[in-house]
């Protein structure tokens, strides 16, 4: 591919949302016939950039040039008509319609006002064969094909509109290895036809396998654009996370508690789930904080969910205090003294319609059953106690939790589980989206809990945080537990090496 003129050139793009500067002077360009990976951690601005490009949001500042002309799409449809097509992570197709219908829905070939099914099926077959190099029975309902094939159909639908730029947002997240290979073959095929492909993924291996060029964003800022071959993995991770290896000395390390012959509170042996996380071994002792590090989508949350029984493991075993435990529902895990604060506070943590008091006592009350209701007075005592202990604001137990800030909601969820007096507390991104002060408070709390003998599994995207609190760290990459670090080994450089991998 020649460095002549980019088909897309974005310069100094700004996009602000209330309270957030989502894109802060971002540059981005693409050439015909390349696969371009857009990289960055959560909140880096990747999806905002895509939405600006496809006309979902207008830009607040900067220039966009598409095929040499200024370009300001006001809707996804306009962007599509200009030749920019997007395939989103979730497939927005109708499983009960045929493949051909899905490809042509809304623009069916017509003959005297009636849909010409034959023409449509022929066109769909030709499209799939010529551009994607696949043969399918296009009259079968889409739902009868695998997710991978459905993805191909989604691509075919996007391609049909004489696309010159194809955006694939996390296309591989639900595919297995063979399916990924097939998708990559198709991407290369399309590339040779001169299409520009913007590829968003969390899997580093895949970036190096298929992309020609990488643009890195961090915190809404443009970090750089590099040919993939010239950017070592470790450097990529550093740029994404924003730490320079040279500056990372070894921080003073808390010595691990006397983890001698004592058997761990919880031990996972070959525990795994297809499509979630590959089998892993992990042990967490009482009074110990084990950190999980890895990029988003690397299997951290999936690990936590298996240990809490939120997802059912399909292989391996789990031992609690030496005895095998079948943790196939949250209730069973709770009965064993395990607690779990989900990373998805809104969807899996708080009950928006309930008050702070009710949210705090929910797990304890559920454990007791309906009839052994805590008296209203006891509930208020508990709520007051935890509001004070965790400094939840406003200090009103009857406030609906939806009216609290993210940090305070997080504290309420923490209170819910502390009230259970768990033996193992699993915290998945407990400090995400909350302010610095609250962050430090929660970290201090976690440390003091472990000193009192609680086992903690601590998951965070922020390496510093993981390093600061953990006595051991398990590093994950591409849904595999790749490395375990303990004591003095826990350094940012080592973790990053492990995250970046081969």
């Amino acid at each position, binding site marked *: 591919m020649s460095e002549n003129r980019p088909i897309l050139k974005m310069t100094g793009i700004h996009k602000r949302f209330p309270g957030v500067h989502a894109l802060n002077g971002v540059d981005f360009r693409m050439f015909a016939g390349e696969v371009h990976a857009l990289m960055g951690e959560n909140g880096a601005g990747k999806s905002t950039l895509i939405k600006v490009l496809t006309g979902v949001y207008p830009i607040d500042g900067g220039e966009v040039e598409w095929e040499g002309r200024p370009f300001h799409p006001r809707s996804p449809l306009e962007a599509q008509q200009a030749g920019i097509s997007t395939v989103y992570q979730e497939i927005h197709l109708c499983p009960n319609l045929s493949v051909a219908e899905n490809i042509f829905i809304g623009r069916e070939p017509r003959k005297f006002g009636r849909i010409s099914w034959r023409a449509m099926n022929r066109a769909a077959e030709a499209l799939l064969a010529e551009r994607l190099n696949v043969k399918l029975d296009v009259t079968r309902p889409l739902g009868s094909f695998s997710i991978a094939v459905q993805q191909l159909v989604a691509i075919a639908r996007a391609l049909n509109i004489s696309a010159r730029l194809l955006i694939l947002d996390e296309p591989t997240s639900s595919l297995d290895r063979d399916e990924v290979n097939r998708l990559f073959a198709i991407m290369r095929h399309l590339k040779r036809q001169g299409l520009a492909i913007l590829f968003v993924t969390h899997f580093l291996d895949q970036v190096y396998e298929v992309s020609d060029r990488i643009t890195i964003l961090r915190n809404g800022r443009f970090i750089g654009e590099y040919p993939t071959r010239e950017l070592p993995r470790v450097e990529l991770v550093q740029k994404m996370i924003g730490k320079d290896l040279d500056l990372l000395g070894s921080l003073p390390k808390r010595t691990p508690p006397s983890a001698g012959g004592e058997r761990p509170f919880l031990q996972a042996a070959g525990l795994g789930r297809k499509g979630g996380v590959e089998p892993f071994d992990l042990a967490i002792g009482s009074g110990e904080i084990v950190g999980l590090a890895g990029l988003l989508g690397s299997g951290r949350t999936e690990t936590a969910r298996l240990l809490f029984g939120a997802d059912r493991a399909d292989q391996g075993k789990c031992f609690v205090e030496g005895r095998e435990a079948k943790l196939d529902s949250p209730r069973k895990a709770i009965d064993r003294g395990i607690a779990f604060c989900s990373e998805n506070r809104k969807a899996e943590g*708080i009950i928006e319609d309930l008050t702070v008091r009710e949210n705090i006592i929910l797990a304890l009350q559920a454990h007791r059953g309906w009839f052994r209701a805590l008296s209203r007075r006891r509930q208020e005592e508990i709520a007051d106690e935890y509001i004070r202990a965790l400094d939840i604001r406003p200090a009103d137990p009857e406030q609906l939790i939806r009216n609290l800030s993210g940090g305070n909601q997080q504290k309420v969820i923490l209170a819910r589980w502390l009230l259970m007096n768990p033996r193992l507390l699993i915290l998945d991104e407990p400090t995400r989206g909350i302010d610095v002060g609250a962050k430090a408070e929660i970290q201090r709390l976690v440390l003091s809990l472990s000193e009192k003998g609680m086992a903690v599994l601590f998951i965070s995207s922020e390496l510093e945080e993981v390093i600061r609190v953990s006595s051991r760290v398990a590093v994950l990459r591409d849904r595999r537990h790749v490395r375990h670090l303990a004591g003095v080994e826990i350094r940012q450089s080592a973790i990053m090496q492990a995250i970046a991998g081969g």
Partner: protein
Amino acid sequence: MPFRWRNSHLFWPLAALGGLLLINLLLKPEFFAIRYQNGHLYGSLIDILNFGSPLAIVAVGMTLVIATRGIDLSVGSLVAISGAMACLTISRGADQQSLHLVLGAVLLALAVSVALGLWNGLLVAGAGIQPIIATLILMVAGRGIAQLITSGQIITVTSKPYHFIGAGWLFTLPFSVYLAALVFLFAAWMTRRTSLGMFIEAIGCNPAASRLAGIRSRSILLAVYMFCALCAGIAGLITSSNVSSADGNNAGLWIELDAILAVVIGGTSLAGGRFSLAGTLVGALLIQTLTTTIYMLGVPPEITLVVKAFVVLAVCLIQSPSFRRAIAARGVPRKPVASRQEVSRHG
């Protein structure tokens, strides 16, 4: 914090009810006349309580189902089945006046109702079918079952004890009013004195988070659907006993829609979560008052449904905060309408 009565979730339903009564006061003052006669009170208001009690009972059960983000379309059929079951048993009995026979018939009818509620609950909580589909099955099949029980005929019974349930009087008021009050108080007690209410709201508001908090949503859903069916069963007994006959074709026809309407008017969202039993009661009374008003005012039958629809539309519109805001915005700028989310508690 001072109690701001306009923010209460009961304000708008009560206002609508008040408005309806005001119309009656202006057009038909005898609507409010209550006489004392043969040892009981007698008047339109009493009739509203009497004829409104089956709807109120069904709506109380429906409230809990809707709070779990579900819906129960089968209540109308259950009303028919329960009445048919009881009347069939009594009509086959040797002595229709026997209290034992009536008691047995009532218990049998209620047991059948609860069993059918269990079926609904199993489809929803066990098989994971969407509630609207799961209960649609019994809505359609139940009508057939009721017709099968009555052989498509109207079963007339002469039992005095049975007649008492729907048409008897106790301490100057219709007995059915006490039944409705009992069901309401029981539901209120179950949901507010035990933690069932909180669990129902948690499941309705956020099923995923509830599961992770360790709530047994399956058993709660089963209980709720069974309770709703029990309510429908009681309503069926009242309806059939009121006219001393069971009509498998028409008993409880469309009551599910009126019940859903009562729940929504009462301020419980169809999306589940927070519910208000008191609001539902007001909603049910509003609907029955509207029906009686239409009869009293002599609205021609050809347009009664249209009149009903307009009143319901008006009530629903003034209930909608965004509609009120839109109206307010067109007039003089006012302070923004306080959000209903600030309501702290209800009974």
